[in-house]
């Protein structure tokens, strides 16, 4: 297993090479370096997985936790230190596969998507940096290493969102993403500090006595850490950065803001799952409620967005919230008894990464073809982009939860876990799953069916109503369709992976079995939602759509504006913090603190101006003062004597 260090080293090297001397490289070479190193990483990741899971279970029926590397990087006092190492256990190995797969797909895809862009080398450098940090995050042996890479991930996300640095929107979005997640990281950090102080270590594996001693503070610490996770995973109300982050290049959205980085929060909770379940089950349930609310909120908002990437972004928020809910509804670490959610969450993480990556890459191909994000510029694209159409459809079916596509299996497990927790939660999540199916097929229909925007424009051009000949949509080049096809295949079959065999809440083998009632109900709901969406959006605006649009105008407007949460945050940051705190402080500093010092100085000067005439150079005045002083001194001396 010693070779697994190369999984981290290669992307880092690639980043350094591309970052330091990329600007002088031809685009092809830069792309090749990035892609080849990532391919090697992917191969290594799969090898690690094969060896790891092939190595079989230990005596306790669990896969062993391997730590091939662990070095003290920065020692603090006592037993506290930041270590750097690699930890392999089922979830980290699974994450390695997810990250390397999606990342490789994105690397290949970007060869086509970013072709000829200014800063192509920079783009690949940042991709490598991101991959490095994300891989480092998942193999972290301790919470501090995780935090360290967590920050790096945040920065690479910042850099990639702001890749088009001449666009004001991208600048604002990148800044927002970084600051919002940084704000959440503050809580993460405090959580870590509490954890470290009470358990005397930052490691994930803490011995029982230490944990018992720290048990009163653990819920607080874990709760704070969850806030950090909520920031990265865009849980309400810290989700505001994710929709804006879509200003970045689309493959980046696929990689970072759909498949990998945004699930870091889920991964964090999963990583700390034994602690949560053992010492802070209440916090876990709070996570479930937060997740459920986020899922609903994002799903509703997704239904009315017009920018296709935003729909996908809110869909991502909603799906991640599903994973959070799945973790949150766990009541014990036994998969047969309340611990099902853990496996379901990880399973959904895996399948979601694939089909959401696919959706984003498909959306990228569409945007590439029509040069717009708005649904109004699309429509009827199925004729022009057949491969994209089919793969997109597969992904939509997967996310909607239609068997035999992968999303069905994972979502079904989540719903089952929710029903185990409480019926209310189960029903609630089922409804959200139905909304998911609805908005995905709304999107699908709007893009691929209905009136073709191109044809309308062409007609207008032919009728001499338009000067310019419209750009004809075309299928993406092979480097872009290849990843689509690969991901579509994975999305179709991933559901049959016996996931429970590899990952479960207590590490023991767990065979997935469908619960017929839940499955049938959810399939029915999904099919019904798809049908509604198809009726409403297949042929442009149908009567029902218009009816709904007119009667729910206020609600739709609010939902379109994401219920004004962004405005609220903007108000807090801009009006309260910037105008209400920062400016007064700056004013206070200049005028009160500095002003008082200046005042002291000017008063001294004034005083000295008054005193100055005494030093007129007139010896007679000197004499008077001298004599008066001498007399005074004598008087004092007499008085003292």
């Amino acid at each position, binding site marked *: 297993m010693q070779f697994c260090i190369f999984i981290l080293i290669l992307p880092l090297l690639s980043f350094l090479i591309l970052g330091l001397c990329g600007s002088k490289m031809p685009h092809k070479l830069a792309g090749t370096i990035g892609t080849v190193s990532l391919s090697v990483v992917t191969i290594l990741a799969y090898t690690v997985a094969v060896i790891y899971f092939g190595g079989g279970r230990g005596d306790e029926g669990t896969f062993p936790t391997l730590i091939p590397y662990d070095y003290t990087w920065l020692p603090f006092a006592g037993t506290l230190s930041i270590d750097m190492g690699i930890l392999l256990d089922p979830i980290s190995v699974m994450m390695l596969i997810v990250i390397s797969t999606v990342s490789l797909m994105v690397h290949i895809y970007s060869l086509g998507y970013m072709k000829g862009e200014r800063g192509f080398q920079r783009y690949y450098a940042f991709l490598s940096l991101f991959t490095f940090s994300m891989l480092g995050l998942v193999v972290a042996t301790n919470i501090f290493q995780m935090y360290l890479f967590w920050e790096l991930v945040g920065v690479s996300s910042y850099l990639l969102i702001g890749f088009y640095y001449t666009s004001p929107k991208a600048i604002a979005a990148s800044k927002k993403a970084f600051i919002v997640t940084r704000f959440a990281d503050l809580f993460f950090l405090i959580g870590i500090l509490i954890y470290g102080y009470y358990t005397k270590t930052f490691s994930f594996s803490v011995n029982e006595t230490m944990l018992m001693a720290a048990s009163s503070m653990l819920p607080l610490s874990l709760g704070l850490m969850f806030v950090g996770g909520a920031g990265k995973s865009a849980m309400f109300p810290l989700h505001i950065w994710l929709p804006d982050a879509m200003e970045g290049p689309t493959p980046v959205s696929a990689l970072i803001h759909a498949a990998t980085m945004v699930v870091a929060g889920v991964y964090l909770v999963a990583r700390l799952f034994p602690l949560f379940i053992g010492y802070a089950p209440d916090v876990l349930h709070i996570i479930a409620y937060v997740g459920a609310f986020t899922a609903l909120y994002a799903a509703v908002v997704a239904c009315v967005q017009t920018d296709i990437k935003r729909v996908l972004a809110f869909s991502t928020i909603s799906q991640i919230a599903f994973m959070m809910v799945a973790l949150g509804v766990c009541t014990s670490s036994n998969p047969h008894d309340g611990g099902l959610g853990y496996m379901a969450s990880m399973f959904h993480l895996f399948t979601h990464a694939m089909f959401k990556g696919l959706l984003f890459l498909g959306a990228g191909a569409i945007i590439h073809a029509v040069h717009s994000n708005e649904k109004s510029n699309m429509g009827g694209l199925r004729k022009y982009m057949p491969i994209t159409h089919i793969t997109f459809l597969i992904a939509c079916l997967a996310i909607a939860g239609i068997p035999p596509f992968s999303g069905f299996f994972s979502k079904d497990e989540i719903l089952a876990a929710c029903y185990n927790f409480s019926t209310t939660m189960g029903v609630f999540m089922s409804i959200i799953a139905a909304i998911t199916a609805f908005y995905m097929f709304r999107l699908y229909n709007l893009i691929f069916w209905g009136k073709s925007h191109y044809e309308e424009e062409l007609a207008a051009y032919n009728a001499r109503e338009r000067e310019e000949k419209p750009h004809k949509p075309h299928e993406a080049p092979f480097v872009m369709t290849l990843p689509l096809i690969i991901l579509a295949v994975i999305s179709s079959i991933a559901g049959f992976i016996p996931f429970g065999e590899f990952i479960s809440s207590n590490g023991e083998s767990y065979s997935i079995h469908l619960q017929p009632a839940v499955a049938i109900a959810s399939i029915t709901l999904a099919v019904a939602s798809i049908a509604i969406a198809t009726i409403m959006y297949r042929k442009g605006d149908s009567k029902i759509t218009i009816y709904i649009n007119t009667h729910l105008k206020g609600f739709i407007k609010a939902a379109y504006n994401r219920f004004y949460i962004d405005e609220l945050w903007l108000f807090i940051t801009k009006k309260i913090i910037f105008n209400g705190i920062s400016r007064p402080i700056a004013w206070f500093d200049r005028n009160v603190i500095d002003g008082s010092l200046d005042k002291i100085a000017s008063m001294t000067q004034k005083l000295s101006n008054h005193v100055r005439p005494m030093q007129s150079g007139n010896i*007679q005045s000197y004499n*008077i003062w001298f*004599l008066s002083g001498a*007399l005074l001194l*004598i008087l004092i001396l*007499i008085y003292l004597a």
Partner: protein
Amino acid sequence: MEETTNIIIFGILSLLMVAAAVAAVISSKIMRAATYLLFVLFGTAGIYFSLFYTFLGAAQITVYAGGIVVLFVFAILLIGKGSVDITHTSKLRYLAGLATSAAGLSLTIYLIRSTSFVTGKFSSAGVSMEKLGNTIMGTDKYNFVLTFEVLSILLLACMVGAILIARKK
């Protein structure tokens, strides 16, 4: 009887001196001021005589009255017009000067009155020239040959300096 005479003479002398001194500092004609100063200097010589320091009194008359006042007179004549009118200062400064001096004087007198000075035996024999010569030129303790020499050099330097400064360019 002798004592009373002494005191009367001292009183007259003092009155004369004080009056002359006051006149010297308030007279508006500078020539008159110099003349009044001359009276004070003579008075001082008289004081020295009353202490039986005859040589000192003689030196006072020769050097001060004979030398310095003559210098003053020369200077005043040389300067001529510039020295005739002495404008007094502002009232405030006048009063301030008066007040400070008065305060200083009263304080000093108070101190003199309240201090009991060590009194040795007052010798009415004066100082013999021999003793004086030995003291000035002697090299023992309480003798002042070094001071004397330094003083002569100082006087020399002053002479040279005065000539240099006053010389026309």
